[in-house]
């Protein structure tokens, strides 16, 4: 694991604008702006930042090009072996920052070949610790905070401590999300927490036997499509 590497995934982009924040602002623009600020803050603290996109419409790294899919983003993040993977979103509902980890139940160890749809399961304890670290930093900065767990792709396929950071308005004004000062405040708090996190992160133990069939109520089962 590269302790000084952080992955930033500004969600959406290109033909996928994400949520319409206001008449003139799309989610993809807010996430990219926040990612640039966070990258600058992290670079100033000595981190190497890997971004899944640094323009509006990134091309897929896969042969043949095309637009970047959610699986492509997870692939970029997993190849970085990062100490933290932050998926950036933005929403006009609520206020402050919404900080989420994957809804998967934790597994004690990571199989040699983790299942793609539940690869995050072994990293859940680390993701939970990272969530607490960043949540504490945001609360100390006086930013309203909501934490929880959600099921949003491609979080469940990430093999790193992974969180969704959803930026919401600072106050009643929806356009407050675009304020430089507000985004700087959020980015500074997150970058500070990641500096502490660098000394705490640990990779999960490897499981050297085949993974047992899941009986936990937390798994995905995309292939068990019902036929109503």
């Amino acid at each position, binding site marked *: 694991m590269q302790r000084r590497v952080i992955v930033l995934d500004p969600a959406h982009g290109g033909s996928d604008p994400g949520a319409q924040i206001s008449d003139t602002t799309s989610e993809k623009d807010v996430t990219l702006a926040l990612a640039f600020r966070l990258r600058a803050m992290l670079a100033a603290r000595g981190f190497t930042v890997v971004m899944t996109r640094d323009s509006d419409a990134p091309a897929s790294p896969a042969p043949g090009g095309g637009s970047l899919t959610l699986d492509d983003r997870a692939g970029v993040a997993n190849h970085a072996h990062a100490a933290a993977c932050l998926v950036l979103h933005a929403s006009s*509902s609520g206020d402050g920052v*919404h900080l989420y980890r994957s809804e998967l139940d934790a597994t004690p160890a990571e199989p040699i070949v983790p299942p793609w749809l539940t690869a995050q399961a072994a990293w859940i304890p680390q993701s939970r610790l990272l969530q607490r670290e960043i949540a504490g930093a945001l609360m*100390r900065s006086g930013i309203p905070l909501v934490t929880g767990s959600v*099921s949003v*792709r491609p979080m469940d396929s990430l093999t790193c401590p992974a969180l969704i950071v959803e930026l919401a308005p600072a106050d009643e004004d929806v356009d407050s999300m675009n304020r430089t000062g507000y985004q700087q405040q959020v980015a500074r708090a997150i970058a500070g927490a990641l500096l502490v996190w660098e000394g705490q992160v640990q990779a999960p133990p490897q499981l050297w036997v085949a993974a047992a069939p899941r009986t936990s109520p937390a798994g995905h089962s995309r292939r068990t499509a019902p036929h109503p």
Partner: protein
Amino acid sequence: MSEGRQPAPRRARPVSPHAGMQKIQRRQRIVFWCLMLCIFAMGLLLAIERHRERQRIEALAEQMPIDAPTAVAKTVTLDLANDQDGSIHPEVRQIALPQAVNARARALIDHLLAAYALPGAAHPLPPGPAVAEVFLLPLPVTGYVADPSWPASSSAEYRTATPVASNDPVALQPQRHGGELAVIDLRNSWVNQHPSGVEVESLTLKSILGTLHRNLPQIEQVRFLVDGQARETLAGHADLLRTYIVRDTTTQTDGDAPEPVHP
């Protein structure tokens, strides 16, 4: 006696044979066209009102349970979401529910989502019919294969079918005997108007799952369809392809909340 001079008889002025008629015709024409305009306007108004009323009745019919509700209203608990703090809290309501479990599930979801369509709701969602149908499948989900020993030409009534369990190693298993999978078929028209965002979409799904968990314990798992088709996300974020476990969503007992911080 002198005869008085008789006044000369008035000579009739030459009048155009159509002059009077033209004057009357103009008035009549004006009245006629005014009446026609009124008739047309009233007809148009009636048509619009009829269309509106039909839409209203159709919307009401969509929101009604399929089965006739029981005579006595039952106490149910709805898990209501709040966008401001990302919380879900239970609220007790009295509503009439049909007997069939799938119709009851649909009625519960309809009541829940109707509460979000009210003005001032803490988790505002678009009004209108949201659920097309709820299907229930016994767990574990099985398929059927025809007995290969019977020739293909045999009629269907003599051919036997054998249930086959899924060989998916990560398939979710039922928690107890009699557990069911609910397949909730949402309407595309409602989904397309759902607000977009990680929090708002997740709260909608958790609210539905929590409400089903409280009122219909036999439902253990839930999958979502949109107009009968699988769809990746609700409105760009929350995953609609996975199978969700029905559980209590009001309390966070897994340590999500950060440790208390004193600035």
